[in-house]
């Protein structure tokens, strides 16, 4: 009976209650509970921020290690999720800085580490052609996001993929909500400048009737200053190579 009560209380406790147990009693069960609740969102965030699944997995583990190490500094009136997202984002920033210093480009990460549209979505995909096309588009998006400055990528990932409210993002980043809004606007504008011509080109290739339209789109986007021409052409080269392999 006592055991059942204990289990049900464990299931119904809030993140903050669980964190309190971790903080005051080093309660491993409460920590595992938090881990199970949050490991997937945190893993996704880290993978999207670094554009690399393996790195994302490592960063996720590092995040939870950090949470346990810093458990005493969690403030009792703070929100656990805000604290957790902040720790994970900071670790991502550190990792990206290390990558930049080493001169590596996450754009060229091992293809297995960047797979998209595989695994659990297999059942939804009607055929190998469509599957390949979706994977290629996913790869374009991954690269486009990595080309964005980190501050824009961070807010976009939190808002779009993790569905956090603007207020929450402001709390995590410890910036005014207006700054979150302007970062999102700028991020979306830059993303559109990168993605629009690439997707237009793909469609133009697969649908000859629309080639002229796509060319117009390219011309239009060519006049915009922010589009990094070399990187979009390298993405295109990557696609062409993939097409050749098929």
């Amino acid at each position, binding site marked *: 009976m006592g055991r059942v009560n204990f289990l049900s209380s464990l299931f119904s406790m809030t993140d903050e209650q669980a964190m309190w147990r971790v903080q005051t009693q080093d309660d491993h069960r409460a920590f595992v509970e938090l881990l199970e609740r949050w490991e997937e969102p945190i893993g996704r965030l880290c993978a999207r921020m670094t554009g690399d699944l393996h790195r994302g997995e490592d960063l996720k583990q590092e995040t939870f290690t950090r949470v346990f190490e810093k458990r005493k500094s969690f403030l009792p009136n703070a929100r656990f999720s805000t604290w957790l997202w902040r720790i994970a984002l900071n670790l991502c920033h550190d990792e990206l800085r290390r990558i930049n210093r080493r001169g590596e480009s996450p754009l060229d990460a091992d293809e297995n580490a960047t797979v998209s549209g595989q*695994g659990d979505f297999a059942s939804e995909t009607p055929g190998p052609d469509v599957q390949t096309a*979706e994977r290629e*588009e996913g790869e*374009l998006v991954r690269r486009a996001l990595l080309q964005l400055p980190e501050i824009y990528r961070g807010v976009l990932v939190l808002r779009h993929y993790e569905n956090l409210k603007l207020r929450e993002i402001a709390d995590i980043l410890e910036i005014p909500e207006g700054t979150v809004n302007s970062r999102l606007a700028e991020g979306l504008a830059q*993303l559109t400048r990168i*993605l629009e011509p690439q997707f237009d080109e793909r469609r133009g290739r697969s649908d000859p009737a629309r080639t002229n339209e796509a060319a117009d789109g390219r011309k239009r986007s060519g006049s915009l200053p922010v589009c990094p021409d070399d990187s979009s052409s390298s993405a295109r080269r990557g696609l062409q190579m993939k097409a050749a392999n098929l």
Partner: protein
Amino acid sequence: MNHPKREEWAPYVFGEATPEARHRLADHLQDCPECAAEIAGWRQSLDKLDRWKLPRMAARPAQGPPPLLKWGVAAALVLGAGVGLGRWSAPAVDLNALQNRIEASVKSSLAVDRQQRLAADLQSALSITDGQLTNDFRTQLDSALAGAVNRSTVETQRQLGEFIQAVNRAREEDRQITFSWIEKIQKQHAADYLSLRNDLETVASLTEEEIRRARQSLNRLAAIQSNNEP
């Protein structure tokens, strides 16, 4: 045309604008093809973001043991530590008590064993000689059997009684020792108290004597002084 500020569009696109802002911005989009094109482009980009799908995170890379095993190992370690601690912190065994307990249980089991063997022997003897034995003899045997059973019961009871007596004796002894100790301590206290009192009395009488003498010499001094004055 006055375009809204760029950051105003973010809450609008993500569905978090206030109703007032939503109406104002929607109205603006109807009249401004430039902004309409830009916002349409943003919305398309958001759709495109969904093309980048991640495999489910739960499918972990095959590194290290599976979590269940990890927790199992952890549980085993904790359990082992607990058992070790328990054994280490267990109270020391009272050898005498253990010996007594074992003796008593061996004795009682021996008595039962003896009873059973006797009964079995008699039963077999009975079955062999059944035909030849008279009723008389049988009743004699029965009474002998009953007597044996009684005797052994009495024996067990006697042993039990002895055991209880021994325990009581030991307890009594303990009590006496404790009493004698208490008595001794009390006597010691009384003696200490007496000698202390004697000492105090001596000091008091000595002090009194001393004061008396001092008073006398003072008187004498006063007398001498009064003699010298005239």
